[in-house]
Structure formats: structure tokens, C-alpha cells
């Protein structure tokens, strides 16, 4: 038996034989599970109970999507092109007072040309569109977004915190063109209808011969942040937009049927529930001579969790991690400081003079125990917590299996590393109370401040540098730049990539252990 194995065994025996520590480790797991499986969340669609869970349309990539818009279309068989001029784009946004909407455009309000496999929600599409504040775009199949020239007919809402800037392109009318060749769709734009610029092309695999092509307008859920001193919150609501189109021209294999107005999504949902489309009730299609005016509300984009979306993400079932974390921190810290309480440390160091080895063995023991507790608890929550929520009518965004594995292992690693960090601090400070306070202030307080008090900028900064950045391991749903949303920790979004967040916490732990080892060497026991 090597020296390290002997030390490891000695430390494991110490841990195993203190009843309080074993009970606390079990409690860590039990608390995470209890918070994860607590029922009582209200259903996402205003209803509670089994079977009332509402569903979002599923796009061609298998992801949930928002798909609501006002459409003016006719079938196209085979190849063809469509050209139109977007003359004006105006809209209404929710204000601080819900009864008094103000004039303005959401950054991702869209008005343009849309080609779809069908009007069924979630079907494959390609669109070339002007936007509220992001210039001309070519978007297809919900997650793809190519940028064209900035500017456009809409007046960008510069007072908006969640959106972008107006860009440098010229304002005013914009000409758009969509051309289909087989399953390839090319989008082009022009300021005057003479000089055309290609934006890009999209390939829609397996596109049927006959597709629907036409004009569309939609305007997404609007969300803004409010800061009243130290209190922060979110406000928002549906927005609507009106696009005015003229110079509509078509060429190619058009079937010659009449243009057909349609309001897709919103209140026209199968179960009678409004899902993603905010359905302001103002959707309309007007045609006066050559001018077509569409008013729409909703979005054609990936569905997100949070102010601009529906339901919760898997991360929100793991809220018990915080409680478990406190227990893990206390156990890790006391495992180090208890040696000093009754002078056991002298015996320990006499028996095993390699002081770094003792620290490493302690870290290995407490880390492994907490990793095991976290792994078991998170696995139970991730597997069963979703079912409890769904059974209660809460929409939980489905998560790929690999992401679920990362969340489970990440939660375990978070607990283990926090315990080891506390062990390092405890060994360094030799006083349990200071070490526990410091560890909690380092790991939990940044998250609390980011969630409750700080505005978005400092909150994101804090979650990049503090040990709390490792909560990024629990992020379940991706952020999309083409969806304006409040991507906040409460909704399960973190500023760092999962592995980067883990790396930050590991660095903190490494520094704490190194300093603790150094102190252990240099000072008297």
C-alpha cells in the first residue's frame, strides 16, 4: 500500500465514522431531490394538472419553435421568383403602462417575403425580410440567420435596452427578392429595385414541388428590463407591426390562383390556446390597388425560455443545488477545521508527515463523496423532475440526452469543487466560521446578487469571474442572437460556456488548495 493510499484510507475512515458528516452528505442529495420534485408550479398555459401541458410546434431540426405571422400568399409550383418593395414598417410596443402601448418597433420585427413548405406550424421555410433594428436578413428553418445590409424602412427603436442599434445603412423603402431553384432559395435586396445585392442562399432539403410563397409580417414578444434603484425586474408583452408593400411582381411557375390572406399561429391554435403568438387581435390583411398592408404579431424563430418565451428549462428544476451547496460547503470546511478543534491535526501530521499528501487525501475524500451525492441527486431530478413538472402542466423545454448528462455531471462537479474549495479555505483559515462564511460569499452570493440586485452588465461580469460561474454547467437551452429575450440566470442562461465556467471554478479551487498547502507547510500545526 502506497503512502498516499494509506493516508486516503485514514481520511476516509475519519469521514465515514463521523455520523454528522455522513448524514449531511445524504442530506445534500435529499435536499436537491426534494426541491427538484416539489410539485406546485403552475401550468404554463394557465391550466394546472395532468394532460394540460401545452405544446410548441416543432421545426425541421427537431427543436421547438415559435411560428406565428400574418401571411398573404399563393402556391408556387417549381421554380420562380417574387419581388416586392417594403414601403413602410410601423408598430406598437408595450409601454410601462400595459394599457398604453407606445409607437415603435421591436428589434426583431419582421416584414418581407416568405417561402414555406406549407402553412402548418413548424414547417420548413426561407424568408428574406426587413427588421426593426437589424437590417435586412435571410433567415431559414428557424435557427439560421444571415445578415444583409443594415437599415430599412422601419425606424429603429433606439430607446430599447434589449435590442441593437440602428446600424449605418440608409433608412427608407427596401426592395426584396426571393428566387427558388429546386430546393435552393436565394435572397437579394436593393435600395431602388435596380441595383441588387445578394444576401445569401438557403438550402431546404426535401422541399416539395409546390410551396407557398408570399408576403409576411410578424412582431415578437417584447421584453425590457426595469431598474428601480436596486430592484430590477422585467416588463414586456406582445408587440404588433404593420408593413406596407407595393410593386409586387412574380415570375416562374405560379399556379395562377388568387392571393390568399392567412393569420398563422396565435389564436388559431388547435387546442384553442394561444401558444407563442401573442395574438393582439389586430392581425389583418388589407389590399388597396397595388398596395398590400399586413398587420401581424408573433415570431418565426426558435422558442426560448424566459420573458420572450414559454415554459421553463431543465436548469430550473435544479434549484435545490443552492441548498445542497451550503451543506457541501459546511461539510468540506468542517472536514478541514475539525482537525484543529481538538488538536487531532498534530496526530495526523505525525502519522503522515507529507502535509500536502494529507490535504490531497482530504480533498479526494470530500470531493468524491460530494460528487457521488450530487450525481445521484441530479440524475433523479433530471429524470423525474421533468415528469413531475409535465404532469403538472408545465412546459419543460426538451433537452438532448448529452446535455442532460452534462447537467447531471456538472451539478455533481459543482458540489464536489465547492466542498474542496471550502476545505482549502478551512485549512488555510483554521476557523470554521470564517471559512464557511467566505465560501458562501464566494460561491452563492454572486449568484444571489446577479439574480436580485445587479443590472445585467455587472451581473454577467460577476458570473464570469466568480466561482459562481460554474453554474453555467446547468444551462439547458441555448441563447439565440436572433431572438430578443432577457437571457438571465433566473431563466437558466449564463454568460459563460459550460466548460469555461467549470474552468473558472477549478482555477479558484486550485488557488485555494495551493495556498492552503503552502500555509500547512510553513506554519506550525
Amino acid at each position, binding site marked *: 500500500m502506497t503512502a498516499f493510499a494509506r493516508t486516503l484510507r485514514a481520511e476516509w475512515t475519519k469521514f465515514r465514522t463521523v455520523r*454528522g458528516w455522513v448524514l449531511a452528505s445524504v442530506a445534500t442529495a435529499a435536499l436537491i431531490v426534494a*426541491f427538484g420534485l*416539489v410539485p*406546485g*408550479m*403552475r401550468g404554463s398555459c394557465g391550466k394546472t394538472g395532468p394532460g394540460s401541458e401545452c405544446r410548441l410546434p416543432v421545426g425541421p431540426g427537431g427543436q421547438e419553435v415559435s411560428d406565428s405571422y400574418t401571411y398573404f400568399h399563393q402556391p408556387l409550383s417549381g421554380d420562380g421568383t417574387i419581388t416586392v418593395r417594403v414601403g413602410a414598417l410601423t408598430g406598437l410596443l*408595450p*409601454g*410601462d*403602462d*400595459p394599457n398604453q402601448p407606445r409607437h415603435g418597433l421591436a428589434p426583431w420585427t419582421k416584414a418581407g417575403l416568405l417561402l414555406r413548405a406549407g402553412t402548418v406550424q413548424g414547417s420548413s421555410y426561407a424568408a428574406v425580410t426587413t427588421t426593426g433594428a437589424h437590417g435586412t436578413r435571410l433567415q431559414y428553418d428557424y435557427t439560421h440567420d444571415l445578415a444583409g445590409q443594415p437599415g430599412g424602412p422601419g425606424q429603429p427603436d433606439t430607446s430599447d435596452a434589449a435590442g441593437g442599434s440602428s446600424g449605418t445603412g440608409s433608412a427608407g423603402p427596401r426592395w426584396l427578392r426571393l428566387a427558388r431553384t429546386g430546393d435552393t432559395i436565394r435572397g437579394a435586396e436593393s435600395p431602388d429595385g435596380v441595383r441588387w445585392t445578394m444576401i445569401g442562399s438557403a438550402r431546404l432539403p426535401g422541399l416539395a414541388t409546390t410551396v407557398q410563397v408570399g408576403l409576411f409580417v410578424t412582431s415578437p414578444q417584447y*421584453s425590457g428590463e*426595469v*431598474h*428601480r*434603484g*436596486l*430592484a*430590477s*425586474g*422585467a*416588463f*414586456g*408583452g*406582445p408587440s404588433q407591426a404593420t408593413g406596407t408593400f407595393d410593386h409586387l411582381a412574380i415570375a416562374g411557375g405560379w399556379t395562377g390562383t388568387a392571393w390568399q390572406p392567412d393569420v398563422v399561429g396565435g389564436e388559431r391554435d388547435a387546442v384553442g390556446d394561444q401558444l407563442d403568438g401573442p395574438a393582439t387581435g389586430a392581425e389583418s390583411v388589407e389590399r388597396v390597388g397595388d398596395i398590400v398592408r399586413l398587420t401581424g404579431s408573433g415570431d418565426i424563430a426558435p422558442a426560448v425560455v424566459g*420573458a420572450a418565451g414559454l415554459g*421553463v428549462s431543465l436548469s*430550473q428544476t435544479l*434549484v*435545490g443545488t*443552492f*441548498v445542497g*451547496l*451550503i*451543506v457541501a*460547503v*459546511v461539510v468540506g*470546511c*468542517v472536514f478541514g*477545521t475539525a482537525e484543529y*478543534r481538538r488538536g487531532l491535526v498534530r496526530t495526523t501530521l505525525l502519522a503522515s508527515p507529507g502535509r500536502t499528501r494529507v490535504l490531497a487525501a482530504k480533498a479526494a475524500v470530500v470531493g468524491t463523496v460530494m460528487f457521488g451525492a450530487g450525481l445521484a441527486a441530479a440524475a433523479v431530478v433530471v429524470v423525474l423532475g421533468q415528469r413531475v413538472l409535465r404532469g403538472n402542466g*408545465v412546459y419543460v423545454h426538451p433537452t438532448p440526452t448529452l446535455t442532460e448528462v452534462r447537467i447531471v455531471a456538472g451539478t455533481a462537479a459543482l458540489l464536489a469543487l465547492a466542498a474542496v474549495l471550502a476545505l482549502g479555505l*478551512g485549512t488555510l483559515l483554521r*476557523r*470554521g*466560521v*470564517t*471559512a*464557511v*462564511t467566505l465560501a*458562501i*460569499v464566494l460561491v*452563492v*452570493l454572486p*449568484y*444571489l446578487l446577479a*439574480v*436580485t*440586485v445587479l443590472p445585467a452588465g455587472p451581473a454577467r461580469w460577476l458570473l464570469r469571474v466568480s466561482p459562481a460561474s460554474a453554474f453555467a454547467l446547468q444551462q439547458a437551452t441555448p441563447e439565440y442572437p436572433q431572438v430578443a429575450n432577457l437571457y438571465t440566470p*433566473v431563466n437558466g442562461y449564463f454568460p459563460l460556456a459550460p466548460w469555461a465556467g467549470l474552468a473558472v471554478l477549478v482555477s479558484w479551487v486550485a488557488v485555494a488548495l495551493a495556498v492552503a498547502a503552502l500555509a500547512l507547510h510553513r506554519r506550525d500545526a
Partner: protein
Amino acid sequence: MGCVLRAEWTKARTSPGMSSLLATMVVVTVALSAAVAATADPLPGADLPKLGLTGVQLGQAVVAVFGVLVMGEEYATGLVTVTVTAVPHRAMVLAAKAAVVIGLVAAAATVAVAGCVLVGWLLVPTGAGVPTGALSSAAAGLHAEVPVPAAPSPDAVAVRPAVGSVLYLVLIGLLSLGVATSVRSSAVGVGIVLALLYVLPIVTAVVADPTWQRHLRQLGPASVGLAVQASTADPEIGPWTGLGILVLWAVGALLAAAILLARRDV
């Protein structure tokens, strides 16, 4: 009782770190309040007295450490055997410690809160905000985290947040003393108290269900106790009702501590 009280007072006075702990409490409380008051850009409708008392959020952690250490040190050093040998009536020891905590924390908290009020008065732009019902954040079904002020407040109201904050810190100190005595360990005690003060608000914020959110807010010691800081009464928790619930927490912790102290071996 007089002798016991004097003994405990001597312990608290001479124990290393205790006075610097209270000084730290004053400094961090005033410092955070000053930082907030200096950087805040209060919009109309901001609750200025509450804003100026933000430092209490951080100061309470130091008060918790203090309350925990008053008893925790006895167990850490083994002094507790001597103490209960000298004073066999254990509840009296606890009562004397509670009196010391009340006195010292009240004194330090008064200084800290007075500093906060002064700093807020000097740094927050005058006339920037009178609480009004301007902010209605619950637009269109989005859950709001901003408490919506219901009515304009009378002028004398700024006294209540200040006095309430002092009482709040004293009660947190007593709660910490009770918890530490019950678990016989400083580290575990401070872990429990900080979990109540800091983790419960996180859980409250993340829980999506409004009913559960309300229940948690009406139970958590930090959220009920700090309701006293709101200039305009919180619709869910009355200022003095909230402090009353915190009194129940503190009394409950001290009762549990007294029973455990009397029944078990030290």
C-alpha cells in the same frame, strides 16, 4: 443573573476579534450603502430610504457570524464545560448571552444604520423620487420582481425603515445565537443562518410558481424582516407583521437552544 450577565459581558468584551467584528459590520454596511447611493440612478418611484439601507443585506452576514461566535467559541475551545459548571442553570447562561447580543448588536447596528441614513442623505440626489404608483411592471402576464408601490407615503415614514433595520439586525443576531447553540458548532451554525438569509431568496426567485413564491417570501426570515425597510407597505407582508414573523424565528431558535442545552450533555 447579574453575575452571569457580567461574566458573559466580560467574555464578549475580551474575546479576540469580537470588537473588530462589530466594527467590520458597521464598515461594510455603511460602505455598501454608500456605494449604492453613489452609483444608483434613482428613477421616479424609487424607494430612497430602502435604497440607502442596502448595506444591511451585507451587514447581516457579519451579525450572523457574531451571533454564532458568541456561543460557538465556547464549544470550539471547550470553555462551555467551565461555564455550565460555574452556572448550573443553563437557560440563564443562554439568557445572559442573548442580552449581550441584543446590547452589542443594537449599539453597532444603530451606528451602522445612522451612517447609512447619513450617507444616503448626503449622496442620493435630493428630490429624485417620491414613492408613487408609477411603476406597473406586471404588464401582459410577465411575472414582475419589482414590488409595485401602492400609494404615496407620508413624510414621517423614513423613521420606520431605520428603526426597523436596527431591530432586524438584532433579531438576526439572536437567531444566529439560537442556531449555533442548537448545533454546537460555529461552522454548521453560520452555514444554516446564511442558508436562511441568502439561499432562501434565491430559491424564491427561481421558483416559477407565484403561489409558492408568495409563501416562501412570507416565511423566509430575510424577506419578512426586510419588509420593514419598504417606505410603502409591501402588499404581501406588513412591515411590523414581517418583523413579528422574524421574532418568531428568533424566539423559536432560542427556545430550541434552551431545551437542547438543558437536556443534553454539553
